[in-house]
């Protein structure tokens, strides 16, 4: 299950380890961390936003672990990947590039590449791939498609997006 947490950490160096250790000790995988140094609280703590995958039944234990480490848990959110889109890529797609592209999407925390099919071309021809992205909501989906588009275009790939992404009606409604 994908979890987002708003935390508060003491404003001293090396605090992050107090978050990362309990998550990984429980088999979790941290996807994204954002420090809000600019939004320091009156308690002289720094708000931190983290997204990670962890088994749902370990959540309570994790919260205890964090608090024992002096980390304040302000909010816990369960994120579901509700929105899906397919994107076609055409060009000289190189495996390593593709891996990096997928990692970039996955590291947003709010979206992930769920499926990828690559069609290998005749010698020297361009290859084609279709990528399936899942995201927590419609806005997140659009953001991740835009991200994929940016990366792929930088690599000179042709990117073909679904018509309703940024289309007339601004895409499908968020399932809510």
């Amino acid at each position: 299950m994908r979890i987002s947490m708003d935390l508060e950490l003491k404003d001293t160096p090396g605090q992050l380890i107090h978050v990362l250790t309990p998550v990984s000790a429980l088999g979790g995988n941290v996807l994204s961390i954002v420090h809000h140094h600019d939004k320091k609280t009156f308690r002289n703590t720094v708000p931190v936003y983290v997204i990670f995958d962890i088994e749902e039944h370990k959540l309570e234990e994790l919260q205890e672990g964090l608090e024992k480490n002096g980390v304040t848990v302000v909010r816990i959110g369960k994120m579901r990947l509700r929105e899906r889109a397919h994107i076609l890529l055409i060009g000289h797609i190189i495996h390593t590039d593709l891996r990096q592209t997928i990692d970039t999407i996955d590291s947003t925390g709010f979206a992930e590449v769920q499926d990828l099919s690559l069609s290998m071309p005749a010698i020297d021809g361009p290859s084609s791939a279709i990528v399936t992205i899942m995201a927590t909501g419609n806005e997140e989906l659009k953001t991740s498609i835009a991200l994929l588009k940016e990366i792929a275009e930088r690599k000179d790939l042709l990117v073909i997006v679904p018509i309703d992404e940024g289309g007339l009606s601004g895409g499908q409604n968020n399932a809510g």
Partner: protein
Amino acid sequence: MQDNSSPFKLAIIGFGAVGQGVARVVQSVPHLEVVAIADSKGVALTPDLEDVLARKRKGKSIANSDLTALDVIRTVDHDVVVEVTPTNIENGEPGLTHFREALKNKRNVVTSNKGPLVAAFGELTELARAQGVALRYEATVGGAMPIINLIRDTLAGTQVLGIRGVLNGTCNYILTRMAEEALEYDQVLSEAQDMGIAEADPTYDVAGIDTACKVVILANAFFNRQVTFADVNVIGIEQITQDALQLARQRGFMVKLIGDVQELTVAPKLIPLGHPLNVSGTLNAASILTDTAGEITVAGKGAGSIETASAILSDILSLMRERD
């Protein structure tokens, strides 16, 4: 009100596929008279339509006078210039000069030629308004598929929020064949060229230029914009592979070249199989999003001599009705 038994007079400027189609379809309309026909080589005055069509078919000259097309526009009495010379997106010529002279001489213009509209939409519509005559261009977008008059007349009173569609039959034919028959781009392109669906130099269609011109015309006509070709972000279909189309199909999608008027983009997009814009072969389709009428989709034959002529005829008939 004028005496509606007096004929409504046309000059057909340009006598290729579309001009000849116009000469055919107007024959069955009472009170319409073709006073002159011009091609690049000469002018036939008060032509016998069957005769000039036969001469053209045999590759003979149609000329029976020393006049030029511009002389006709300036000096021969008529109500409507049907301007159907080749599209030139660089500078709109020779059409642009024909349009200007026609409007200056208080003649209505009906056209399928995108060039002058892409080059000088604002100037031309303003000139028509100042001269109290009409500039009609239904045939420039979507051939026989009604879109411009549909929005202007039938949907009058609604606000158009967006227009997007499959606006080029050549691209749609190529993409449909590639997807359905699992053929490569080059092969389908040659086939389309053999069938006369694609030009010998297909760039204008397959690079998305034609679609972009239609986007420009619709943006200027309905979004009150002053845009030109350079404002449209254009991606064509030349890079699309058969593999990509198969991958898309396995997930329930077709790829279509979509012109989006509000975004000012032309790009291939994934279209769900059941989507109203998923039309096949050389068909065109367009969706119009309105504030009160929701989304309306039209589809039809996007090109062809008689189809395009029928769109021109609908403009001529509406001018005739306005006169009477």
